[in-house]
């Protein structure tokens, strides 16, 4: 309604001096926040800093005790979230507010169902189609589908469409990427970009700093309910500065001692999983982990990582595969079996799989003990000393913790207690699924330190994580799972996030690549391969050998020093011309592969045996570049 010039001058939303107490906890202490139309504004802070409360004040879910919120220059006083929706403010939360039994269409227009009068469904269907189209997802999410069957990303899309259906001009995204895969995150950022172009003001609440840098224009940081950094240009900040403002102190390396990446060959193999099969998601997964080692299981959401570790632990039926602990075969049918064999397991979802809300912190701490305990009594007394010691070591205040409700503590503290639950049993093997999901960065680093310390005592640690940076930072070795198959097993020192992303890509997205390699190999009677080359090591992502004589000496998933291959000369020179090996048996051409965004995606190579007719290196280069355009 305002002239564009006025929009620029007056912020879309201006909150000043907002305070809110919950019981005795001060959630917000005179916090301030400013949002302009046409920007994505990051709202950051450690857990408990007040981000969620401030978001909920803006969206009308929470009424502040004091302070002023101006929206388009007018004071906001909501009696309900309906009031907020009416003026055009919507919130997209982690747990969506959709009704699972209704269709996509009904959910998008749910707020209209509460109004008196008749609704024209054909008109709604048209409008719903338009909304999804404006988000670039027409036809991808069927309007008639029940929301229950949608993926997390699709549900979020419906939620956004719902906000737009109400004409929302201010949308708060509260941790929207927590359960999305990297490609889904990318798509979400696209949508956020469109909304920004359309003049919406977007608030982006997230723990993931790299996403903050990727998508926000300005950031505001809260700490202990106060605004400690107000509306700074994101580009003017470094990651270290952000972290410092969030935790209020200089953090050293987040990842304990920077020990990740050390290959450990000395420890005994503690857990060996071979050809694990647990339909429908886990098709063939193998990995092993040594005592004292931290193994990361990487992959995209839905690749079958969580399902694989749940099957190992006995939470999920297993159809095939062998599990060996300390070299002995073990038949695990239920969690009790694996616990007695020395496995501890921190499940992925803290609230639904780990916390028993009606029990005290102390009993939650003792829950796995109760599971492992044989006998009629509870056997708590025997663990008293160990509980005490553990609490002290974790820096948990014993007197406050023992009788309190778990849910009153921050996500990080809850996670520490759940991990401690398993440490109490002194496991040989500790498996953690997304150990830092929803945990603020300060607590995260202390969890990493804790895991490293556990490993150093000789425990074999397995971590499943969707956060590739975390996975590489904390683990010694990474096994990549894609489409239910373990596709690579590499020291993390050899990897970075880009390479991990390539390895984790669904095998189906490799179809074009495989086709190219096969064509190259077939047409010229040699071997085609796609590999990452780092200094003097090579990781083969895909290989197709048509002629045995051309075999370059590595296969898909292999990682080895260049000198151990049969084409060391060509791999060392890395040139887009045919390079013959000193022994004269093979000639190889290498072409760099770059994504449309310019990321290094390794090299495509063609190796031909001695005496074969050499095709034009330029022609091969053209074909590889044509492929990279399609990636």
């Amino acid at each position, binding site marked *: 309604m305002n002239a564009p010039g006025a929009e620029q001058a007056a912020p879309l939303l201006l909150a000043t001096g907002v305070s809110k107490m919950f*019981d005795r906890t001060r959630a917000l202490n005179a916090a301030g926040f400013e949002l302009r139309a046409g920007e994505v504004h990051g709202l950051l802070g450690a857990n408990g800093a007040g981000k969620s409360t401030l978001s909920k004040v803006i969206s009308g879910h929470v009424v502040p005790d004091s302070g002023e919120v101006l929206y388009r220059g007018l004071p906001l006083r909501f009696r309900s979230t309906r009031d907020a929706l009416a003026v055009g403010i919507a919130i997209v939360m982690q747990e969506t507010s959709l009704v699972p039994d209704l269709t996509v269409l009904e959910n998008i227009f749910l707020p209209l169902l509460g109004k008196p009068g008749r609704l024209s469904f054909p008109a709604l269907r048209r409008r719903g189609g338009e909304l999804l189209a404006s988000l670039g997802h027409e036809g991808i999410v069927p309007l008639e589908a029940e929301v229950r069957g949608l993926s997390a990303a699709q549900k979020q899309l419906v939620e956004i469409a719902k906000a737009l259906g109400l004409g929302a001009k201010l949308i708060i995204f509260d941790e929207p990427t927590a359960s999305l895969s990297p490609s889904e995150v990318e798509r979400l950022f696209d949508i956020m970009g469109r909304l920004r172009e359309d003049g919406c003001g977007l608030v982006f609440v997230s723990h993931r700093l790299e996403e903050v840098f990727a998508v926000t224009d300005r950031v505001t940081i809260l700490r202990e309910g106060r605004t400690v950094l107000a509306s700074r240009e994101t580009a003017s900040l470094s990651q270290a500065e952000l972290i410092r403002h969030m935790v209020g102190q200089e953090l050293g390396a987040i990842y304990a001692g920077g020990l990740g990446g050390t290959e450990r060959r000395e420890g005994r193999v503690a857990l060996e999983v071979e050809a694990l099969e647990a339909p429908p998601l886990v098709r063939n997964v193998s990995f092993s982990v040594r005592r004292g080692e931290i193994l990361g299981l990487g992959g995209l959401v839905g690749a079958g990582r969580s399902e694989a570790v749940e099957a190992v*632990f006995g*939470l999920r039926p297993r159809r095939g595969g062998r599990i060996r602990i300390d070299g002995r075969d073990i038949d695990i049918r*239920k*969690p*009790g079996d*694996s*616990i007695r064999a020395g496995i501890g*397991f921190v*499940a992925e979802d803290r609230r*639904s*799989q*780990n*916390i*028993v*809300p*009606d*029990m005290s912190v102390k*009993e939650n701490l003792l*829950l*796995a003990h*109760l*599971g*492992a*305990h044989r*006998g*009629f*009594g*509870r*056997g708590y007394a025997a663990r008293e000393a160990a509980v005490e010691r553990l609490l002290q070591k974790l820096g948990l205040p014993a*007197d406050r913790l023992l*009788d309190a*409700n778990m849910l009153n503590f921050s996500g990080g503290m809850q996670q520490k207690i759940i991990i401690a*639950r398993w440490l109490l049993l002194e496991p040989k093997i500790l498996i953690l699924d997304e150990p830092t999901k929803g945990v603020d960065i300060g607590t995260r680093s202390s969890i990493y330190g804790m895991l490293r310390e556990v490993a150093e005592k000789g425990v074999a640690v397995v971590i499943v994580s969707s956060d590739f940076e975390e996975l590489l930072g904390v683990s010694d070795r990474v096994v990549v799972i894609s489409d239910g198959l373990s596709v690579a097993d590499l020291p993390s020192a050899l990897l970075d996030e880009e390479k991990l992303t390539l390895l984790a890509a669904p095998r189906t997205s490799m179809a074009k690549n495989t086709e190219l390699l096969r064509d190259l190999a077939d047409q010229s009677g040699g071997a085609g391969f796609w590999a990452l080359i780092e200094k003097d090591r090579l990781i083969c992502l895909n290989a197709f050998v048509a002629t045995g004589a051309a075999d370059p000496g590595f296969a898909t998933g292999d990682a080895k020093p260049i000198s151990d291959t049969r084409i060391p000369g060509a791999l060392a020179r890395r040139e887009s011309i045919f390079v013959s090996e000193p022994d004269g048996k093979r000639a190889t051409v290498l072409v760099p592969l770059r994504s449309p965004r310019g990321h290094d995606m390794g090299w495509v190579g063609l190796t031909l045996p001695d005496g074969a007719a050499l095709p034009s290196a330029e022609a091969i280069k053209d074909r590889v570049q044509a492929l990279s355009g399609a990636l």
Partner: protein
Amino acid sequence: MTNSSAMPARSTLGSLSKSLEIRMLLLAAVIAVALSLLSPYFLTRSNIFNILDQSVVIGIVAVGMTFVILTGGIDLSVGSVAGLTGILLGLALQHVALPVAIGLAIVAGAGIGLLSGILVAYFGLAAFVVTLGVMAIGRSLAYIFSGQTAISNFPSDMSSIVYTSVFGVPSNVLFLVVLYLVAWAYLSFTKGGRTIYAVGSNKEAARAAGLNVLFYAVLPYVVSGALAAVAITFSISQLLSIDPLAGQGMELDAIAAVVIGGASLFGGRGSMIGTLIGVLIMVMIRNGLNLMGVSPFWQGSAIGTIIIVALLVERLVSARVGR
């Protein structure tokens, strides 16, 4: 350690006012005082023993109901299981000795509970529906087995189960006290008891921690069925008669007592102490209304109103105190 001397005073007081059992005990006291003002007979020694005596049958059933509700389930079949096992007890007595007949009735009750428990916990059927079905079947079998008539050929020495006095306390009241002590100790201090709480509060977490979820989700129904048979045994011992309608409405009294005692119907929250207080509140009100000569037809309205008001007040108070 150093501040441990300062902390407890505040936290004890805090937890006292926060404890639902304490608040319900206060409510029970208020009701007792009110009724004693309304009726001079209410607080006499003989009437107090009356109240305790009337608490026995419903109190026994409420123990099993507490176990079931703690797991997040419900057992609507206790009334008809009591009726059916009572009839079976009467029939068995024509062939076997009293202790054996009682044993058979209890085993039958436990067996029916086992069936419900397996349907609920293993096959994942809704407890409400399963026990509703068992309730109908049980009542129907009670009619069929009894030939639609009351059985009253019980030996008169059976009443010694109820009326033997131990140190001045009737044996049935003593049994109730011991039962509550055992149930309380089981729920508080054993692996099984804690598992029942954990299963009711978060079944997935209990499973992931290696607890035997299936067994301890079935067990409460077995306990409930067995205790329904025990309860009807005490009832028969007093009346020396059983008819196929016996136990009707018992499930509602038991559920009401458990809920008044602070248990959550979603499971995970509740206690034997709370249930005992709930039973006493129910029985006191009924007893007081009888003393005042209120028509039995009005008593249902009075009890229903008091239950709802009590829960409403509790909800308002606990919202203020904070959980």
